[in-house]
């Protein structure tokens, strides 16, 4: 077992874990933060995406021990109290989700995308979501959602 | 050819309970067994003074503890939750779930801790420092009525929550009072019995204390609340309104409930706080009461003083009754607090055709735990006051107590009978119950034995009491939640039956009795039926839940109606399949057959399967087999009975010992006599307990002196003789089952007859009445005083 201490959504969380415990399982099983989902086992689908030290990462491809001392933001930590993050607003406004399973990862990737490029073109958005698979939406409303958030971010 | 087994009719049979396999294997899920991922635990910091002003609260040490998630003081809680609800039209002082300025009884919450586990939570509670300015304390209700030394609530002068509410003969609906008839009755009297009596304060004490798990889910904006409650639907209504949510957003679940006896209604401070904290933090939280907390924070029962005046002729004819009641309701009004003593007034006529009755009720605040419903809830007090007085009258007149009662009975042909206090008894045959009890007890021989024992110097006494009470409460006009009950019955596609009932039980065995009813109604095995209850998501409708002995008379009636509807629909499908007329169909032995053509029959499951996949759908019919019903009773039911006790008091120590207890109850038609017996046994134990064992006692400073099971006794198995039960059956015309209800009966008739037996035992010492509880010392003093 190994002791890890990870700051998750602003709160320091410590636990004894098996070294092989994946970060996604640490979040889901130990911290009960079940927003990050597991949709594949080959690091393609992106449903488990979180921000690790501020950048999007697939939490299924990182051991919890690797993240010892790091800061993690999950979908649960994105809203500011009752105020949704602009991307959460965008996904809601634009019907950017159906079954919702890919959504947390998709939103976290989009956060990274807009952090890097606050005014993306449609193609930038599509390319920037290459690490996330959605099976329901055909992506068009997701693109709209990111555009919606980008608009808001620019106004704000 | 296989022979279909013939299924016995089950209604009226002593069917073993279906609830028991899980409970006898430790597999029941009580609220403390509910575990949710990420659950936090609550603990309350409670006032240790009876009356005081909170000057400061220091929560810093608590907050600094590892594992403490949050601490909320009363002021912080007030931002998260409004005042606690009451259900009644009476004015009530505002009560906060957690006190904000003034505490008014020992045990009132002043802060709440949320922590990782219950151990840390308890540590944190102890780490909270509260500084109080002490205020004067009032404990005696008759003193409190003077307004001295202190007024608990500024808007309630003289501590009067309810001041001299009149009822009975000459009291108009407009509140106008005409004394002529009552005065005349007393003027005409040849004898008047007058006695101040105390029906003391009790602690309901279900063996499972209260407990709550609340789970507000952000994003879903739904609140699920598990509570050890008798009334999940009422709880849902309260939680929704208190949290500004819709009823559709709240799900209340009564899991296995380890007893209630009236004290587990809904809307308690702890339920409200747990819900509000979960809502604030967005995580599930649990609170489970400790027994020491329960004695302080769970509502108490009874605590009425009655001034009884009974006017009669020398032949025993009762002419009039005056009953002035002072109810000590403790520090606050709870859900039904104000209403409970009104039942004492409404039932003042007992089993008797008393031509003139005047009852008045005053409810008084004191620095004690609030009272509310406890098994019987007002009716035991009414019967106690009246039956003790009848006993005194008999003694005064030298009449046999049974004969005195018989002389005054409402006669069978007088039903429905409207009493002077405005209730309408549905049906009754009091002579029959009395006769059966006298016969079972061997009354005349018993009297002889008593006399013989006395002659031997033994202090043996005999007591008898009649009772009539209110069950199957009651039409919607009388209950703030509505007086109906609901049921939904579904024949599943495999032919098994699921039904829901709003009557959420806590030991009453509805899963068994209701299944018996449906088994008979549909002619299927008991094992093919499952009764669901206690979860508002599963059971769409419910009113009061279980209370007022209404499960069978109202809930059972709703089930019966819903079952009948499904059966009618099923018959249509069966008629199609069998090419027969619906009216000719017989549901029996797991088949639906055609009358007079025994070979033309379809298995129940086959008809069910067809209804869910109707290759051909009969005209005007929808597929499926599911129906619901709301049953609205036209009135309450009024079961009755007679209890007889034989008791001996130890001359040396004053210890009373119950030697025999004979009970004959008439609850109308019985579904499961085994379960009915259980209900009566439990009620007797609590009724006898009040007479002989139980009492909540406060010191003059408002400190409880019975704060644990070290000082508050509950009856043990060794306290009782074997109870001798019997029943007569006088059906009620008010519901299709003819069932009246039985949950509280035992508690009502037993107390006065035990006290009367004690008085009888000590009658040689010139005693006419003894106030409960019959502590050995109290009896010893009577014996001792007589010797002086």
């Amino acid at each position: 077992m190994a002791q890890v201490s990870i700051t998750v959504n602003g709160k320091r969380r410590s636990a004894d874990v098996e070294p092989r415990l994946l970060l996604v399982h640490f979040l889901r099983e130990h911290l009960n933060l079940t927003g990050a989902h597991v949709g594949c086992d080959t690091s393609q689908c992106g449903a488990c995406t979180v921000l690790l030290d501020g950048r999007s990462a697939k939490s299924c491809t990182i051991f919890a021990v690797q993240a010892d001392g790091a800061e993690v933001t999950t979908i649960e930590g994105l809203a500011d109290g009752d105020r949704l993050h602009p991307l959460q607003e965008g996904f809601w406004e634009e019907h950017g989700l159906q079954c919702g399973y890919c959504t947390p990862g998709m939103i976290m990737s989009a956060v990274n995308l807009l952090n890097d490029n606050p005014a993306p073109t449609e193609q930038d958005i599509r390319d920037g979501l290459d690490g996330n698979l959605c099976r329901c939406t055909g992506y068009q409303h997701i693109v709209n959602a990111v555009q919606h958030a980008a608009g808001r971010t620019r106004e704000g | 050819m296989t022979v279909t087994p013939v299924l016995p009719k089950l209604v009226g049979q002593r069917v073993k309970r279906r609830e028991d396999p899980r409970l006898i294997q430790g597999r029941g899920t009580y609220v403390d067994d509910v575990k949710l991922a990420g659950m936090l635990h609550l603990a309350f910091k409670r006032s240790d003074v009876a009356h005081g002003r909170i000057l400061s609260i220091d929560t810093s040490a608590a907050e600094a503890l590892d594992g403490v998630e949050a601490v909320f003081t009363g002021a912080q809680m007030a931002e998260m939750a409004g005042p606690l609800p009451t259900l009644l039209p009476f004015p009530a002082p505002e009560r906060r779930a957690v006190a904000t300025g003034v505490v008014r009884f020992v045990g009132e919450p002043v802060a709440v801790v949320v922590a990782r586990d219950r151990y840390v939570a308890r540590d944190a509670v102890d780490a909270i420092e509260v500084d109080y300015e002490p205020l004067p304390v009032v404990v005696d209700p008759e003193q409190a009525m003077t307004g001295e030394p202190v007024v608990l609530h500024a808007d309630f002068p003289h501590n009067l929550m309810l001041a001299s509410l009149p009822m009975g003969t000459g009291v108009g609906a407009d509140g106008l009072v005409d004394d002529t008839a009552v005065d005349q009755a007393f003027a005409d009297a040849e004898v008047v019995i007058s006695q101040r009596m105390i029906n003391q304060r009790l602690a309901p004490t279900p063996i499972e204390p209260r407990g709550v798990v609340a789970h507000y889910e952000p994003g879903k904006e739904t609140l699920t609340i598990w509570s050890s409650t008798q009334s999940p639907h009422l709880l849902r209504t309260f939680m929704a309104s208190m949290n500004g949510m819709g009823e559709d957003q709240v799900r209340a679940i009564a899991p296995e409930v380890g007893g209630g006896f009236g004290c587990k209604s809904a809307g308690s401070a702890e339920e409200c706080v747990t819900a509000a904290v979960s809502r604030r933090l967005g995580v599930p939280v649990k609170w489970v009461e400790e027994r020491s907390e329960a004695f302080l924070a769970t509502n108490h029962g009874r605590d009425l003083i009655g001034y009884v005046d009974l006017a009669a002729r020398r032949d025993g004819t009762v002419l009039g009754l005056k009953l002035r009641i002072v109810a000590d309701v403790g520090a606050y009004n709870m859900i039904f607090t104000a209403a409970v003593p009104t039942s004492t007034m409404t039932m003042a006529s007992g089993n008797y055709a008393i031509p003139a009755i005047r009852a008045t009720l005053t409810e008084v605040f004191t620095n004690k735990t609030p009272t509310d419903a406890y098994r019987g809830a007002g009716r035991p007090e009414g019967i106690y006051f009246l039956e003790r007085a009848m006993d005194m009258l008999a003694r005064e007149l030298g009449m046999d107590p049974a004969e005195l009662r018989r002389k005054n009975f409402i006669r069978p042909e007088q039903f429905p009978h409207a009493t002077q206090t405005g209730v309408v008894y549905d049906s009754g045959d009091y002579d029959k119950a009395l006769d059966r009890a006298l016969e079972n007890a061997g009354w005349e021989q018993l009297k002889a034995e008593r006399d013989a024992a006395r002659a031997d110097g033994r202090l043996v006494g005999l007591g008898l009491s009649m009772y009539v009470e209110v069950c199957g409460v009651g039409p919607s006009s009388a209950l703030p939640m509505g007086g109906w009950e609901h049921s939904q019955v579904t024949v599943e596609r495999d032919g098994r039956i699921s039904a829901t009932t709003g009557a959420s039980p806590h030991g009453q065995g509805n899963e068994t009795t209701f299944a018996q009813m449906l088994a008979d109604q549909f002619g299927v095995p008991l094992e093919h039926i499952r009764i669901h209850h206690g979860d508002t998501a599963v059971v769409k409708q419910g009113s009061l839940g279980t209370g007022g002995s209404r499960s069978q008379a109202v809930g059972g009636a709703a089930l019966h109606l819903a079952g009948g509807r499904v059966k009618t629909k099923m018959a249509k499908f069966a008629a199609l399949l069998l090419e027969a007329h619906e009216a000719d169909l017989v549901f029996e032995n797991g088949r639906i057959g055609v009358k007079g053509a025994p070979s033309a029959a379809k298995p129940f499951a086959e008809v069910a399967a067809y209804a869910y996949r109707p290759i051909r759908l009969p005209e005007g019919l929808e597929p499926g087999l599911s129906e619901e019903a709301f049953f609205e009773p036209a009135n309450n039911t009024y079961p009755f009975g007679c209890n007889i006790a034989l008791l001996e008091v130890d001359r040396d120590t004053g210890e009373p010992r119950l030697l025999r207890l004979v009970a004959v109850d008439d609850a109308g038609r019985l579904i499961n006599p085994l379960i009915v017996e259980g209900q009566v046994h439990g009620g007797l134990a609590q009724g006898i307990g009040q007479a002989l064992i139980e009492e909540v006692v406060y010191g003059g400073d408002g400190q409880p002196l019975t704060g644990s099971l070290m000082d508050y006794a509950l009856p043990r198995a060794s306290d009782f003789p074997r109870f001798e039960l019997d029943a007569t059956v006088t059906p009620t015309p008010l519901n299709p089952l003819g069932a009246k209800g039985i949950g509280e009966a035992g508690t009502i008739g037993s107390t006065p007859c035990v006290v009367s037996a004690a008085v009888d035992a000590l009658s040689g010492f010139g005693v006419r009445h003894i106030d409960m509880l019959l502590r050995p010392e109290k009896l010893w003093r009577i014996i001792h005083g007589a010797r002086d």
Partner: protein
Amino acid sequence: MIPTAFDYARATSLDDAIARLQAAGGAGKLLAGGHSLVPLMKLRLSEPAVLIDIGHIPDLAGIRESDGVVEIGANTRHHDVATSALLRERCPVVADTAAVIGDPQVRNRGTLGGSLAHADPAADYPAAMLAVDADLHLKGPGGWRVVKARDFFQGVFTVDLAADEILAKVTFAASRASAYAKLHQRASRFAIVGVAAALETGGGIIRTARVGLTGAASSPSRLAGVEAALAGQPATAAAAAAAARGAGDGVSELNADIHGSAEYRRAMIPVFTRRALEAALARAGG
């Protein structure tokens, strides 16, 4: 989804990591970003007994240039390479390559050193390293050792790296006229064929050309024929096209799977060679 159990240690320095590798006696694996290794471990295709995390060793990440030589630390993440202003300006083929590896999340975590040491035959970086003729700096118990990229890649998942050695950094001469072109495998985003080209031009003439190939065959290689054909040719698209035409001819041990037969891969080598060369030439500018 679930790897086998292992012991984990965080190395504090290169020497610490080497000592731990030695202590593991061949059962140890280095972990940097983990984006080559962890997916294999999750499928139990790799079951190391000991993982030595070099991801937190100071100074192992970073991009700098001095005297025309670019140095990239082994722990430098793909995203940082892809967005490096220095590389985009001075040696765009490397940034190009990093920018089309996997997907954004992979690029945020994956490292140059990890990718090179892992040497997946369909990985992108090897082609670029071949094209810039990179020096790979390896440190072992005996000290530093420098291996040319063309010598480093030896076969499928096989490189010139001892069990107790660590790839610490790469250095190469900046090449402005350089580019990477790739045929994506649609599922994995790996390269079916990836070609990196780095040209030295002057006076309208291609003086030297280095062309690295990945994805097509069992291990990455230089396209010597193309390089030779280009040398001395005018720096034009036509010349590039002509040189690319037979690019696939000499490539051996071609891969084949459902995403592309050997024949198709061979045919794609000239296509992407031409595209890489054209893009490189477009950057040659003056």
